[in-house]
């Protein structure tokens, strides 16, 4: 009950934000919030596999970054009129979000399916490390792409349009990001309470039991991993629009680590927690960086204390209920 109330209040705050900030002549903070929401979406997606599924993926940056690149590359080709694929059929770029964003989710999802298919054969630390290794592979391959900027990244000309409507400006993209996040949270919570979630969570708690019951553990996990990768890709597409820029930095292992930090900071196995974790971490980074050049010297120990002494994360403190994981 208290958790629902907390979630409802959070939603109200996020809905009110554009109006409040507008009134205070701080509309640009909306752009900051949009970035937080995009990361929140990616962190919540990670929570699905990490918190509920018990799969500690150290490579989700690869899915986030891939989604960002798909959206960015499509816009890039659209703006200079060149072909994305010239043969056997010519495929050009597009600015339409209804095409580009599902494409981003699809490509990231397929990548996650491929990486998951191999990685899920392993357990524990091996899983952590193999997902990291695959993400590094994707990272270096993207770095080497000559036509899309390599380490320099890719400037994204303009933004997507949504069913023909412009997303320029702070508010439209904010609303879209918020809608996507809310939709995913609703879907995720419902899924985790449904049969799929029951089996996935059961397999996390006791894989041997689940197998003895005949639960197709591998397939369920692969499905969850793929879904999670796809949603992280979608978050990447939002991020590409927010920053008008995509960079290989999104695919780096530090970004993957940061997504994990967001999940844990907020509280794993809650889906709402990672949203809070994403907002808190990004806000802390900006705030601390403004105070001192040596901000990492504050952020590092602070994170350490959270891991050591606040295992449940922030959300349970508010919602009064521990997460599933």
């Amino acid at each position, binding site marked *: 009950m208290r958790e629902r109330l907390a979630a409802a209040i959070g939603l109200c705050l996020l809905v009110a934000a554009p109006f409040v900030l507008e009134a205070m002549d701080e509309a640009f903070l909306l752009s900051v919030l949009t970035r937080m929401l995009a990361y929140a979406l990616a962190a919540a997606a990670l929570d699905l596999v990490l918190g509920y599924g018990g799969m500690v993926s150290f490579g989700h940056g690869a899915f986030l970054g891939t989604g960002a690149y798909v959206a960015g590359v499509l816009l890039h080709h659209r703006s200079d009129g060149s072909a994305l694929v010239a043969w056997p059929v010519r495929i050009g770029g597009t600015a339409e979000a209804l095409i580009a964003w599902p494409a981003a989710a699809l490509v990231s999802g397929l990548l996650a399916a491929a990486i998951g298919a191999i990685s899920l054969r392993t357990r524990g*630390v091996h899983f952590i490390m193999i997902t990291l290794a695959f993400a590094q592979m994707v990272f270096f391959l993207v770095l080497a792409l000559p036509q899309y900027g390599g380490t320099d990244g890719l400037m994204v000309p303009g933004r997507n349009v949504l069913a023909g409507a412009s997303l320029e400006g702070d508010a439209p993209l904010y609303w879209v990001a918020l809608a996507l996040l809310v939709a995913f949270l609703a879907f995720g919570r419902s899924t985790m309470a449904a049969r799929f979630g029951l089996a996935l969570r059961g397999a996390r708690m006791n894989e041997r039991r689940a197998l003895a019951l005949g639960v197709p553990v591998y397939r369920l996990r692969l499905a969850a991993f793929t879904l999670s990768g796809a949603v992280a890709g979608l978050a990447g597409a939002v991020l590409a629009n927010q920053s008008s820029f995509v960079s290989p930095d999104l695919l780096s292992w530090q970004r993957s680590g940061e997504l994990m930090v967001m999940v844990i900071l907020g509280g794993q196995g809650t889906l709402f927690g990672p949203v809070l974790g994403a907002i808190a971490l990004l806000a802390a980074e900006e705030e601390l960086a403004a105070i001192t050049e040596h901000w990492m010297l504050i952020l590092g120990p602070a*994170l350490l204390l959270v891991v050591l002494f606040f295992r449940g994360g922030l959300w349970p403190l508010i919602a009064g209920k521990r997460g599933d994981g």
Partner: protein
Amino acid sequence: MTATLFAEQTLNGLQFGVMLFLMAAGLTLIFGIMDVINLAHGSLYMAGAFVGGTVTARTGSFLLGVVAGAAAGALIALLLELTVIRRLYRRDHLDQVLATYALILTFNEGVKVIWGPAPIFLAAPEMLSGTVEILPGVPYPAYRLAVICAGVAAALFLGWLIGRTRTGMLIRAGTTHRETVQALGVDVGVLFALVFAIGGALAGLAGVMAGPVLAVQVGMGEQILILAFVVIVVGGLGSVKGAMAGALLVGLADTWARAFLPVLLRGLLPPSSADQVAANLGSVAVYLLMAVVLAVRPQGLFPRHA
């Protein structure tokens, strides 16, 4: 390509592998015995290099620098074990990854505060700065031969320590039969702190030894850390033998891919795309190796039996 060049490149690969082993040995020791995954191992490596560099500069003795670097690694490791790692033994790997990730951020900034943002100086001693002709017409850096010796010595030391000594017996027993060991009157906490310090000393040693070959700078730990993880995962987590095998394999795969792929692919593809493909494959060769090994043997080459 001549046979000499092939032999030289193979030696290069093995040499790089041994360098990786120095780093991976401590990591796999700590994982194998304490079941702790320590991302901050790279920070110990960095600390070893910085302290070793500073001591070498002050005293003019590289040997003292090596000793100081290893000691610094051990000391910091001990401090970490007592304050942080100790609380992580009964936690899952996720908590260990995150806590030690936080340590990386802290250490990187801490080193910057103490030593400044610029890389620092650390060179091989005069007597090792020349070259030795190992094959006809192939001068080889003497210092790299010293690195190989250090790596082999570390491997032998670990083998002896774990396989032949009472401490080693207790260490091995401590992982699986904690209660039995405690009943023998041995303090497992002290034992684990000791292991962590040994791991730290190895990391510090690796740091100083790498100093004359690599840049001693903030962030130097992470680059090699990821490679070291590839090494121990390929070799089989927790196995020193596996770490050696993994290190040599990764060293060879990396070096061979860079040395020979362009030549091989030029026979198959037009030159420009051959170079591009070869360079891309070379970039990911070690990760590819790891993916293949784990796909075939999910526990690595030398799995540790529980």
